[in-house]
């Protein structure tokens, strides 16, 4: 069951609901068909914590992985929310992360997008942001839902800007909205109304950044390698902002219409209230879709909570998980015991929770499918990766990773299939994603040799 608000709900929802109409109408217009030259237009990574109901310690089979052949496969109950998108997804069996460092949850989170043990490398999303995403006003968009809860340590985050170096996601959709669409961000240069080239604030920011860049350069020479690398990141940030201000960076082409954010239930006091987690996650998904729809960015990562999650999913109202009298946390449920035992409360909760994450992913796909793009929808031109840091939450194995790649990638991949391997490195999938995004990367992390066979068109 996909819990998607109807149009009428959306119009009614939210304090600013009445203002949403023009944005909704815009969906019905045909998006521009220009410049769709093949290849994936965007990558959206959707992460959730603590694995799935995989093969149990006692050897019972996975309740997550589809069974059957490449095209004639069956989706298990847990993946049923993806049934409407079956033809736009690739499912996998036998993808392994190989060895990992530092325990299973943190080790898995470090390796998930970096494909290196201990996270000693740039993650694929940050890599693509710096290559094929570098000409966008925002190279990278990292949105979270309670991903920084209780001062989460760095190893809770899956996006690595350099070896061992994570960055924190933005957990407040209102702040992210403001950054992406607010007045602080002058529109990129281009013909027509909205050109802001004469704004004195833009000129000032440009000279401020220019000053900053010169000072950074002078400082860099005095540093050792580690600090030089940090300053290089800082310098990259300056370049991104300069390009956004129209310093010749060609950030044009974005037409965002009237962006809209449904902030129902979200304010400073509910941002870290598990009862409002679904509202926050929904808003972040909406934002990622809008930001990539109008090409503000090509790479977005949505991180829902973080590994060994304390998220109390039994507080999600209007879901089968709801139980106000008993606090069931994500990580707690994942330790359901050695068997798929329906007599155990944790196991039943874990099943429901994992399906709920799939429903959220399906909501993301559904949003993408509602936006026309080129000769199809946004989903046809996107790559959307569903991932978590372990397979089964109890055994913590990093084999048979529960990954789903959705979207047509602009024709770069052939969806609608189940691809089966035997201990094939998940790095090869990340490499294939890079290729589909137009980055002919030779190797990535501990990839075993070339992009995942049979995936690319």
């Amino acid at each position: 069951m996909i819990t998607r608000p109807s149009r009428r709900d959306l119009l009614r929802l939210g304090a600013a609901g009445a203002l949403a109409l023009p944005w909704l109408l815009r969906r019905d217009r045909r998006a521009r068909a220009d410049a769709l030259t093949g290849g994936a237009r965007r990558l959206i990574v959707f992460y959730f914590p603590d694995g799935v109901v995989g093969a149990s310690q006692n050897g019972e089979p996975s309740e997550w992985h589809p069974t059957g052949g490449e095209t004639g496969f069956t989706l298990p109950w847990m993946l049923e929310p993806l049934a409407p998108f079956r033809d736009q997804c690739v499912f996998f069996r036998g993808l392994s992360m190989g060895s990992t460092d530092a325990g299973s949850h943190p080790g898995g989170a470090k390796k998930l997008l970096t494909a290196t043990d201990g996270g000693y490398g740039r993650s694929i999303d940050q890599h693509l942001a710096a290559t094929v995403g570098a000409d966008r006003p925002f190279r990278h968009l990292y949105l979270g839902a309670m991903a920084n809860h209780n001062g989460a340590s760095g190893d809770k985050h899956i996006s690595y800007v350099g070896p061992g170096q994570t960055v924190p996601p933005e957990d407040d959709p209102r702040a992210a909205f403001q950054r992406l669409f607010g007045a602080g961000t002058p529109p990129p240069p281009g013909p027509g109304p909205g050109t802001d080239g004469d704004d004195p604030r833009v000129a000032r920011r440009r000279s401020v950044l220019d000053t900053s860049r010169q000072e950074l350069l002078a400082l860099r020479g005095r540093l050792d390698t580690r600090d030089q690398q940090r300053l290089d990141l800082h310098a990259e940030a300056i370049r991104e902002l300069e390009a956004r201000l129209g310093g010749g960076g060609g950030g044009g082409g974005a037409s965002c219409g009237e962006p809209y954010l449904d902030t129902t239930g979200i304010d400073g006091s509910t941002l870290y209230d598990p009862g409002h987690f679904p509202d926050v996650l929904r808003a972040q998904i909406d934002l990622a879709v809008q930001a990539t729809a109008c090409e503000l960015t090509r790479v977005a990562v949505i991180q829902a909570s973080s590994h060994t999650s304390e998220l109390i999913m039994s507080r999600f109202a209007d879901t089968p998980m709801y139980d106000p009298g008993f606090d069931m946390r994500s990580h707690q449920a994942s330790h359901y015991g050695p068997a798929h035992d329906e007599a155990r409360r944790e196991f039943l909760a874990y099943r429901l929770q994992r399906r709920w994450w799939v429903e959220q992913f399906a909501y993301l796909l559904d949003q993408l499918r509602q936006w026309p793009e080129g000769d199809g929808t946004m989903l046809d031109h996107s790559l959307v990766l569903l991932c978590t840091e372990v397979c089964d939450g109890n055994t913590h194995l990093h084999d048979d990773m529960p990954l789903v790649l959705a979207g047509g990638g602009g024709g770069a991949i052939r969806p609608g299939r189940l691809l089966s391997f035997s201990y094939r490195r998940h790095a090869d999938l990340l490499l294939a994603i890079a290729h589909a995004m137009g980055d002919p990367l030779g190797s990535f992390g501990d990839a075993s040799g070339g992009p995942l066979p049979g995936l690319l068109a």
Partner: protein
Amino acid sequence: MSRAVPLLAVVILGAGGGCGGGRDRYDYAASEGATRYAELCAVCHGEEGQGGLGPVLVDSPRTLEHLRDTIETRMPPNDPSRCTGACADELARFIRDGLRSDALACDGVEPSPRQLRLLTRREYRATVHDLFGDDAPALACARATDCAYRDGCVAGACEPSACNAHTFVFDPQGRALSTVHVAGTFNGWAGTIAAGGLALTRDADGLFVGTFTLPEGSSAYKLVLDEGEWVTDPRGTATQPDGFGGQNSVLALSCGDDGGDDPTVGFPAETRPAGFLFDDHAGAGVVTSVHLDAYLAAAEALADRLAAAAATRWPCDWAGDRGGCADALLDATARGVLRRRPTADERARYRALIVDAASATEGVATALHAMLVSPAFLYRAELGEPHGDGYRLTGDEVAAALSYGLWGTTPDAALWAAADAGELTTPDGIERHVRRMLDDPRARDLVGRFALQWVSGEAIETVDKQPDRFAGFDARVRAALAAETRNFAAHVVFDGGGTLRELLTADYTVVDEVAAAHYGIAGVTGGPRPVPYGDGRRAGVLGHATMLATQAHSDQTSPIRRGLFVRRNLLCHDLPPPPPTAGGVPDVDPDATTRERFAQHTADPVCAGCHTYIDGLGFGFEHFDPVGRWRDDEDGRPIDATGEVRGLEGLGTGAGATPYATVPELAAMLADSDAAAACFVRQSFRFTRGYVETLAERCARRSLTERFRASGGDIRELLVDLFVSPDFLERR
């Protein structure tokens, strides 16, 4: 290549001897194997291979091949796959070459690494406040429109609104209007005043004015004229598209730490490496475009405000002699902002920004804006200048390091003067200033913040608790409990005995009315004050909810987390993570106490290997419920809160278990232990230096630890020693 600084350590810190060994020292700082050892092996084999739960490794007679083979196939015992191949090679080489008694001996103190430290949020906030804060003369005003956007005009002077309030002003400019009201996300875009629109009232000058308390965070709004015409607020500075081709005004309100006007409100979250308790890890702070967006916006707002008041803040003939005024402004501000004098190039650039701008105001705004996003402002440098065969911090760098290390903010005039006089590049001069600074209230504040992080207590503000069972555990109570730990630590260090023992064992705490009510302590009204526990139940920080509630689940206690807290935070025993198939938290069972449900840990031999060192420490806290209140029983079932301590000085050390019956007894054992003292020095070292110590800094830590023990655990003296220690001034 590593160097030792021979003389000062021995003389000043009385460092332990050791006869030196060869010139060819093992380079611990550069050793990958040393890093892996600290992470994977030290907890059992001892930090320096001295043994414990695992055998002694120092001066091992084993061959490299034997060591590597053992690591590959058997170590660490709970997961031998953790270190194989290159990792096993590095580790074996380290054990053979690094864990040698001659290499480990000290004949001096190694310098610390040179590093850049990005300002933390609290440092940024305090810095901006101290550089430009409340000494600003209030702007005279006749009406609110004379004041900055968020300010109102009160008795002829501009006054900022309360942190969560905002003054709206609309000038009808002669139009005859009946009503003006505010509609936005906070009132459902009320189209009429009857529907909840915030009505402005007309003042004597004919302006429509109103001050309202609004939700914190970002709100979008419009002004509505005569309940029909929706307009963007002409005084607003931020807007976003309204969906109808126009713009909504946007207002961001925050009541952060210092209440109101928090410049860091839009900054990205701060994270720290796993296991690092403090917010100031030097390597964790990177500037991405998300950070830079936030820095740029914060600096812009600040620069605008300062520039608008430039004529009063920097009185000068701005119209007649902008160049001269620019010089005066740079003389007054640049060193404070950059934490050193600007170079000739920098000075020329800032001057040009002021002089070449369209107006003086715009020029000042641009120059300040640029200074406030310059790397010299955003990072504090501990880079030094070449000195001998290493580096030595400059006087300005020492001034900043002392100031941020002891006050959490930018240096005062006396520190800059001391830097100019060359007083801060000698241990004597540094010591004099540290002692002076410790007498300043800002040191109390910083010690309080350190203590709250030391007990992992900041999460008290956000940790989940079941709303039905703990309905009273609201934001106000949580804030009061965080303040308890801060105030208590400051009291111990500056008003009390000043020792680690007192932090751990004090038979009192410092609470205000709200925190006292939470604990059920009678007779406290108003602000924080010392209150005796007097019931033999609690002891020092071990009785604080900042520890007890954050190391507990939402609906039940966690003896495991509380036990691990003692191990990790207080003893620096970093136990390995549980094996992958460890069970989770047992179900809440109405027929069993928490302790009974967790008993299987120690019954199962696989679990017992570690849990024998954890659970006995945690069970002693069972009389404290998930929010840190005393409970006589657990839903009617009797509580067994006796515990036992094993391996206090290191896993595998000591003879068996020592039982205890109460938390004060446990606290006394900890206070008597060498491990707790050494760990406190390590934690203080991490907080002050901004990195995790390695064996390269072992000699500095040995000296500091010896001095700390000899002083009876005197925290003020430790703070002095941390900055007088040669590894502070000298860098590699």
